[in-house]
């Protein structure tokens, strides 16, 4: 793959940002958007707009077809068995809330346990916490080891006969650890426990095969996959979507509505109440095509090269401390500089156009465990180059200079 050509497909890099060439190292937060995605939104609104799934006029039928085409594209991209296993949501957060809410309603009661890990994003903890409040369930956390990874053994250690569901990240947005999800699913299934994978950081960077992983649920964020904001995907095995109750009530998700009672629609409509983020769903098809064109293997290889280069470079930089050292690691480098708070690092780097994130990255449990209130994080996407990492390193040196280190 030619990164220079790929970068040209992203309009954000056309112009200077605050008089600097943009060095965008915040893709774990949200990725930039290729022109095809932005154009697709514009074209849909200007030439093809109509609501989907309701009216019978020409535009409505055409829009419905486009909307459903994205469902099929996603199904193929993640190798799901059936297109009805793809539910559109407003984001991965809603996808996890959907499962926690509906699974919780039907299968969780007082004393039952939900097993998470210490490195979960708040979006894979808070929805389960609601059930702790409402149903008196317990939440257990599989521990991270000194390298910032969660092993299969750490998961196994926390499984009890009360464990009703396991919900874990595919790839940590802080340490970059890639969890052994296939083995976790095998282990859980041997004990009849379903598994949800928070795939926010997995889907943009790793090859996905739902039938191979065999998880019960997989949550995807559209805006981290070069797609628009306002769209996420819940993959769920058909047996679960048929079995679980609906999540939100409204138009589009019903079969028959009478004063005496209501019956719900067929899949996938059952979980898509109200007018969905139509333009975003349709444009997300372009994100999938964009990633397919480059090839996920090439993306993985490119980001691994960047990661190795970045780790080597930053390890050589005195006073930089890299957080975690997982054996299987995605394109995320979290770090601290002794004597400089991560927010000061982020502000100083920004002055040179180097955009990183600082804070607890929505992972307070993990930061408490690491005994760090905050870290700085550089994360990669398809458009990043080794030159970006050199600029990061230079900006870190400037930071050290300002703080007299």
């Amino acid at each position, binding site marked *: 793959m030619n990164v220079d050509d790929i970068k040209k497909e992203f309009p954000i890099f056309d112009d200077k940002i605050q008089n600097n060439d943009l060095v965008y190292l915040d893709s774990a937060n949200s990725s930039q958007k290729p022109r095809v995605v932005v154009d697709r939104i514009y074209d849909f609104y200007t030439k093809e707009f109509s609501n989907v799934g309701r009216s019978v006029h020409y535009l409505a039928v055409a829009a419905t077809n486009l909307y459903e085409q994205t469902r099929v594209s996603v199904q193929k991209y993640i190798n799901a068995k059936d297109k009805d296993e793809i539910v559109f949501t407003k984001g991965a957060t809603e996808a996890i809330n959907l499962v926690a809410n509906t699974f919780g309603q039907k299968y969780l009661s007082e004393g039952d346990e939900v097993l998470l890990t210490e490195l979960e994003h708040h979006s894979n903890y808070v929805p389960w916490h609601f059930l702790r409040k409402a149903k008196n369930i317990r939440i257990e956390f599989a521990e991270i080891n000194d390298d910032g990874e969660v092993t299969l053994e750490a998961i196994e250690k926390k499984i009890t006969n009360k464990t009703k569901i396991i919900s874990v990240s595919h790839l940590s947005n802080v340490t970059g650890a890639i969890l052994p999800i296939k083995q976790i699913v095998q282990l859980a299934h041997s004990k009849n426990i379903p598994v949800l994978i928070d795939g926010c950081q997995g889907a943009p960077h790793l090859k996905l095969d739902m039938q191979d992983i065999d998880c019960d649920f997989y949550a995807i964020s559209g805006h981290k996959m070069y797609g628009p904001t306002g769209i996420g995907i819940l993959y769920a095995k058909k047996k679960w979507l048929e079995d679980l109750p609906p999540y939100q009530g409204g138009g589009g998700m019903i079969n028959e509505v009478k004063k005496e009672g209501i019956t719900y629609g067929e899949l996938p409509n059952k979980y898509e109440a109200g007018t969905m983020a139509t333009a975003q769903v349709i444009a997300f098809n372009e994100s999938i095509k964009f990633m397919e064109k480059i090839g996920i293997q090439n993306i993985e290889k490119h980001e691994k090269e960047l990661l190795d280069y970045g780790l080597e470079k930053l390890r050589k930089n005195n006073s930089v401390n890299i957080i975690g050292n997982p054996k299987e690691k995605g394109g995320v480098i979290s770090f601290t500089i002794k*004597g400089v708070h991560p*927010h000061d690092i982020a*502000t100083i780097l920004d002055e040179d156009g180097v955009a990183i994130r600082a804070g607890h990255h929505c992972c307070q449990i993990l930061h408490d465990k690491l005994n760090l209130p905050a870290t700085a994080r550089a994360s990669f996407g398809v458009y990043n180059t080794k030159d970006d990492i050199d600029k990061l390193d230079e900006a870190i040196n400037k930071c050290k200079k300002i703080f007299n280190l």
Partner: protein
Amino acid sequence: MDLKDLYQEIILDHGKNPRNLGKFDNYNKDAKGNNPLCGDNVHVYLRLNENKKVEDIAFEGHGCAISMASASIMTDMVRGKEEKEVKEIVTDFLGMIKEKDSLETKILKDDEKTKLMSLSGVKQYPMRVKCATLSWHTLTSALDNSDQIVKTED
């Protein structure tokens, strides 16, 4: 924007070696403040004597250079002042950080004003304003005996 305006020597000095950091025993007012977006937190302790004068003041917490320096300078500045005066200084400081070009209060001496004005660089960095104001809001909360934890997002 110029980083030198933000990270002046005095800020770096107070950020690195914050004055009045810690907790003392006989405080009679205190309050906590959080910045949920960055995880910064501060706990202000003070002793108000029978004449409503700040006899002693200190703070615990962690945060960036701006927030530590701001708490450090603030605690230095209000020690020995009466509650009424402290509130006037807080209002004046917050007004300066938000919109005004200078400090107007007559309570502070010129060199004290210069010290406080060193924090005015954050005006050019909207995301960092809350770093500079957290300890000040928390001080107000302590004086008002509020049980509410101060949040910068409010």
